[in-house]
């Protein structure tokens, strides 16, 4: 069966520090991968998606970037965090051959101080 992991679960970082959040998926090949930010009362905002290694599309201009160094690894990064980057970050995967619905990870709660 497929599983999705995110770490860390929680993170407190000062303004101006770098960020690296990791997401890995097991049990499926060549998935589409997604990063979302969830804010209270605002639903889920798609930040990045990837249809393959090295292929990243950005949905909103911002202080963050994403990379996909391996088929089932998706990384969310920032060189310098802003206060506004605080939030709950969710990684998800989907596979067209497995119904195309998205499966979500447990999320990372980021607090920028």
């Amino acid at each position: 069966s497929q599983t999705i992991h995110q770490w860390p679960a929680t993170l407190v970082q000062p303004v101006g520090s770098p960020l690296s959040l990791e997401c890995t998926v097991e049990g499926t090949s060549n998935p589409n991968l997604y990063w979302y930010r969830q804010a209270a009362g605002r639903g889920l905002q798609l930040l990045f998606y990837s249809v393959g290694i090295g292929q990243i599309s950005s949905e909103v201009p911002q202080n963050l970037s994403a990379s996909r160094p391996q088929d089932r690894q998706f990384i969310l990064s920032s060189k310098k965090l802003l206060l506004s980057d605080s939030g709950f970050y969710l990684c998800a995967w989907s596979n067209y051959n497995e119904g195309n619905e998205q499966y979500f990870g447990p999320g990372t709660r980021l607090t920028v101080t």
Partner: protein
Amino acid sequence: AQSVSQHNHHVILSEAASLELGCNYSYGGTVNLFWYVQYPGQHLQLLLKYFSGDPLVKGIKGFEAEFIKSKFSFNLRKPSVQWSDTAEYFCAVMRGGGSQGNLIFGKGTKLSVKP
């Protein structure tokens, strides 16, 4: 741009009451529709989905949703809620076709069920 509207931000019901959460979307082409649920402290998980066929979709835990194409709606229903249904519910739309599968989410509806 495509958008998804959920009409209620917070719904409070007593156990055994009936539930209907509204969801409307703005995209005019073929769509795939989803309801996700997030129980307190848990992952976001799929409740039900509509891709094609019977517009009345049955999901887990007694939930169902009806796709009404003419109204661009996909409302979620449950005849009798339980305390354990307390959660946040998200409607999501994916443009049909292709393998990309990008979802557009509504802002969510918090459901609180009083025992």
